[in-house]
């Protein structure tokens, strides 16, 4: 790994304006003051402005892959666009070395009327490739994008996945020193996404990569360093494990309003109380759970389910009373159940819980509390798999040889 610094970001800030009309007017002001070489005033916010990127500094060396993570609107894309020279910083300085390839936009410059082949040439030259270079890479690009049969049809007949594939193939054919990737791989099918990651992996040895992603598994897998942005500020710069942890903490502090949460109950249930013994447990500690169900009549048989959702909203663990043979009939009045879910040897982070109580036919949901409760598993952050198996390893001695 070379120690060559490819990107140097020094105390960089950029301000943006919330209202369009004002923003346009400030744009004119900025152009005028640059023409008149008027210095100063850039440090202060004008009415309606805020710092989209605030005093961020870091360095990137060849062979490094830096994950840039943060919530929506944290300033990740703004930072990438400054690195790419699309917009000017309002404070600070950026130094970039070598050829910069960016996947801030896949397929920008595609003209829908032109064929795939024609668009490869247009796109390639937009990204700085010469005609001869494109000629020599044409086969590779078409191969990688898997569009052999369609290369001579207009791009408007392509599916969106095909357009993305073509865009990625053209952009990575550039073989840049610095590669800026902005969430571009959120689209496309899984097989192609893997192919893209393999290609980035190949390029990584020779380049410095900055990857913006909301998928922490990808970040953990690909990045050896992470910068966490929150409201324009860099709040963490270090190894990926710590960074993902910092990002996880960020998510719990803030209220994620995009999560749909509700609690429904149905006759004969008239009240339900769910209580977690602890809302924050250490990795490996036990999670205890209490539920009070108030019923107006006897229900002979019910099934109680508890589902854990991870931060990507995937149901990743389930406890089901029927499957473990627990008896959960309800009597009239208050029924209290205590469930001991055992030690949590799972990935640290936040989980949301959904609790379902089904009737005797396991069809109607008498209680449906969806993602209302959350639990935070604390401890050494691991960015990898959901569960850790604490199994033993034994050396086998082969006596036959």
């Amino acid at each position: 790994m070379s120690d060559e610094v490819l990107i140097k970001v020094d105390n960089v800030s950029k301000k943006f304006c919330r209202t369009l009309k004002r923003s346009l007017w400030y744009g004119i002001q900025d152009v005028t003051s640059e023409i008149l070489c008027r210095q100063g005033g850039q440090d202060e916010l004008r009415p309606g402005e805020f710092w989209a990127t605030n005093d961020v500094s870091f360095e990137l060396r060849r062979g490094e892959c830096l994950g840039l993570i943060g919530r929506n609107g944290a300033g990740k894309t703004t930072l990438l666009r400054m690195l790419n020279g699309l917009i000017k910083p309002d404070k600070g300085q950026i130094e970039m070395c070598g050829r910069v390839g960016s996947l801030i936009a896949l397929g920008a410059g595609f003209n829908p009327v032109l064929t795939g082949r024609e668009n490869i040439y247009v796109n390639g030259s937009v990204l700085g490739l010469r005609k001869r270079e494109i000629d020599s890479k044409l086969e590779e690009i078409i191969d990688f994008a898997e569009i052999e049969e369609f290369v001579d049809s207009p791009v408007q007949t392509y599916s969106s996945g095909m357009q993305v594939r073509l865009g990625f193939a053209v952009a990575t054919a550039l073989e840049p020193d610095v590669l800026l990737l902005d969430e571009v791989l959120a689209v496309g099918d899984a097989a192609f996404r893997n192919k893209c990651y393999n290609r980035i992996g190949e390029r990584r040895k020779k380049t410095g990569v900055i990857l913006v992603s909301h998928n922490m598994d990808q970040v953990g897998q690909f990045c050896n360093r992470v910068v966490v942005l929150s409201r324009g500020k860099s709040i963490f710069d270090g190894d990926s494990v710590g960074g993902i942890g910092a990002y996880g903490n960020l998510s719990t502090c803030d209220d994620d309003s995009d999560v749909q949460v509700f609690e429904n109950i149905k006759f004969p249930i008239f009240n339900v109380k769910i209580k977690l013994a602890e809302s924050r447990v250490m990795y490996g500690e036990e999670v205890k759970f209490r539920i009070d169900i108030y019923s107006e009549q006897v229900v002979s048989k019910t099934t109680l389910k508890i589902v854990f959702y991870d931060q990507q909203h995937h149901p990743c663990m389930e406890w089901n009373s029927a499957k473990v043979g627990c008896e959960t009939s309800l009597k009239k009045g208050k029924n209290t159940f205590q469930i001991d879910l055992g030690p949590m040897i799972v990935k640290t982070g936040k989980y949301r819980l959904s609790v379902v109580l089904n009737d005797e036919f396991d069809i109607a949901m008498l209680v449906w509390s969806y993602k209302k409760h959350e639990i935070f598993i604390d401890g050494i952050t691991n960015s990898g798999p959901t569960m850790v198996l604490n199994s033993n390893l034994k050396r086998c001695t082969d006596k036959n040889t």
Partner: protein
Amino acid sequence: MGQPTLKKTFYSPESQLRQPSILIREMLSDLFASRGLAWRLFVRNISAQYRQSILGYLWAFLPPLFSMAIWVLLNSQKIINIDDPGMPYPLFVLTGTVLWQTFVDAINSPLKLVTESKEMLAKINFPREALILAGLLEVIFNFFIRILLLVAIFVWYRTPVTGTAGLAFLGVLVLIVLGLMIGILLTPLGVLYNDVGRTIAIFTQFWFFLTPVIYPMPKEGIVALIVQYNPVTPVLVSVREWLILGSSSQLMGFCVVSFVSVGFLLLGWVLYRIAMPHLIARISA
């Protein structure tokens, strides 16, 4: 190891005008670097423009042709009263409208290309000069198509080609530079506010009537005064006279407008470069 030293790029809030030598060097190298891209964009625009159309390249002919037809009709019916221009009137009007159309194309070209390429500008760093160059190529291309129209009418009226036809081409170039200069100066404002585009559309219509396109130079009155100070007048009149009569009556004006246009075009280029990152920050925010 002998690895070539990598090109370093710096981005800072400091005005690019503070280091004019770097600015000029970058402008020239970007202009040079944008050739290939400009050509590609030009080919793309032209082929895309004419691909989804039945009449295709005819669209370059039709506006000046219809415009000529209307003025010839109005003039022949004595609905309007135009002085004798000293040459067949259809010939006079057609050269005039072809030149005027080319001038208007040149005005509209920078703003049109930048607006069309907003998405690309906001997401990819490429030499911004490529857009202007691609627009220029398109204007020249359309002019060359329209030349066929002029050839046809010259043959029809058996007008011999004058020895100053070469000068006429130079004149067309100046006409394009004049239009491009106006267009590029208005582009930064026009990207932010679409009032600019609308104003250009209305204003060029007015301008058409205040330029000796369909009538010869008026002798007296307010219009005569306006026409005289109209920068398009000397260029358009010169080109037409070089083409048909063999000498220009407006040589002095032509030279002045040429120098001023080239000078302001360079200024416009600097403005365009400086404004671009600020514009991109605003249009995609």
